[in-house]
């Protein structure tokens, strides 16, 4: 893909009377890493699930590359890798078998070779014959990431990738994501320090609305000030405590 990787136009999602996402419009360029920041209930996960095709927008449009995301266009999922809170893995299958299921569903030409390659990428080759229910949270997250990377997606969607991970697991995850630098990444996070370090740009959401769209220069302190203003918080400690 060249140019715009993700385009969102006047996107709204309502659940009955509750509007989770309210008229969002933004674009993500190829190779850009964009962080979605905001307090609980801001609409980050709902937005990400709509981008992943797991939630249907009430109105508005999502385009991935040149193609609009529509319910019937399943081929568009070849360009998309998705990691959510849940691992999307089967506990009864081994790590390798889990990957093979998804490799087959993606119709990869070399599923067995590709599975071994991504197991290497996430450092799980030696534990490939074990079931994910025997894994720690960090290892399960890495396997989930391996599943999302199997088909070499152009766009990677990550929902709270750092949540529940210890320092070492975060470092491992960061190392994997470093190898993905040439691709487009959209991630949600409450972790401002890590999010700012990882992302080129931040979108701040609050109550379903886009409150700020800022380029990041790696300085968490500078972004915190913007974030605080955008969501109406005064105490920076509150942000770090989220």
């Amino acid at each position, binding site marked *: 893909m060249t140019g715009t990787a993700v385009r969102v136009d006047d996107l709204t999602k309502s659940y009955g009377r509750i509007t989770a996402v309210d008229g969002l419009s933004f674009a993500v360029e190829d190779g850009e890493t964009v962080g979605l920041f905001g307090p609980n209930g801001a609409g980050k996960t709902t937005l990400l699930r709509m981008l992943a095709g797991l939630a249907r927008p009430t109105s508005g449009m999502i385009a991935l590359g040149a193609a609009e995301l529509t319910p019937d266009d399943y081929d568009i999922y070849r360009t998309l890798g998705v990691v959510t809170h849940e691992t999307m*893995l*089967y506990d*009864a*299958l081994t790590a390798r*078998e889990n990957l093979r*299921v998804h490799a087959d*569903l993606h119709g990869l030409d070399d599923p067995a070779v590709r599975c071994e390659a991504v197991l290497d990428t996430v450092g799980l080759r030696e534990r490939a014959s074990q079931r994910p229910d025997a894994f720690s949270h960090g290892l399960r997250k890495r396997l989930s990431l391996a599943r999302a990377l199997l088909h070499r997606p152009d766009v990677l969607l990550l929902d709270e990738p750092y949540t529940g991970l210890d320092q070492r697991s975060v470092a491992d995850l960061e190392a994997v994501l470093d190898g993905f630098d040439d691709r487009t990444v959209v991630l949600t996070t409450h972790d401002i320090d890590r999010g700012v370090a990882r992302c080129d740009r931040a979108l701040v959401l609050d109550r379903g609305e886009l409150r700020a769209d800022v380029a990041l220069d790696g300085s968490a302190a500078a972004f915190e000030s913007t974030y605080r203003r955008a969501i109406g918080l005064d105490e920076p400690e509150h942000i770090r405590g989220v």
Partner: protein
Amino acid sequence: MKAFLAAVLRVVRKDVRIESRTKGVTTTTAMFALLVVLAFAFSFVKTFREPAVLGRGALWIAFVFGGTLGVTKAAAIEDRNAALDGLLVAPVDRSAVYLGKVTSTALFVFVVNVVTLGATTVLLGYAPTPRTALAVVGVLAAAAVGFAAVGVVVATLTYRSGLDELALPLLLVPLVVPVLLAGVELTAALTAGAPLGSWLRLLCLYTGVLLLAGVATFEFVVEE
């Protein structure tokens, strides 16, 4: 079309592999169905004069209750770790995912029903001729497909909308009443050597309608 069928097959293969490893659906369902037959045996076998009536009654009651448990278990596998989402973000027609789930669920329900049929023969003295037994197995297969067609949709809906598990039989059983009626009547007709007539047409047509309705609604059931 080839890609569609390949996707259906991959979902089935995945489910069969999981089931062969865990026996989570078939063992639980079979145990439950056998308990139903056993309860019939303890309650009626000494006093009831017509084992054919008793046998088919036990068979189809076990079919409904065991089948309900079976579809619940099958849906729970996809609900755990949001595994179904993994299938939904694959470049696969969601109808293929649905038909794959229906095929594997019907297979598990069918296997349990064949075991239940054997149990009614042993415990309740229901002794159809081999030819009749084969025809009853055919009816069970068709009924299992109809049951799974609606069961997959309702069980998925129950899990994804966070409804209580009690909601599943309340929603499912009324929808499978025509399957149950046709199954009971066909079993009676086969045992008595009577013509199958309209009950066979009802079973096949209703199963077809359930499958089409499932294909049409599954997309909306799985999407938020």
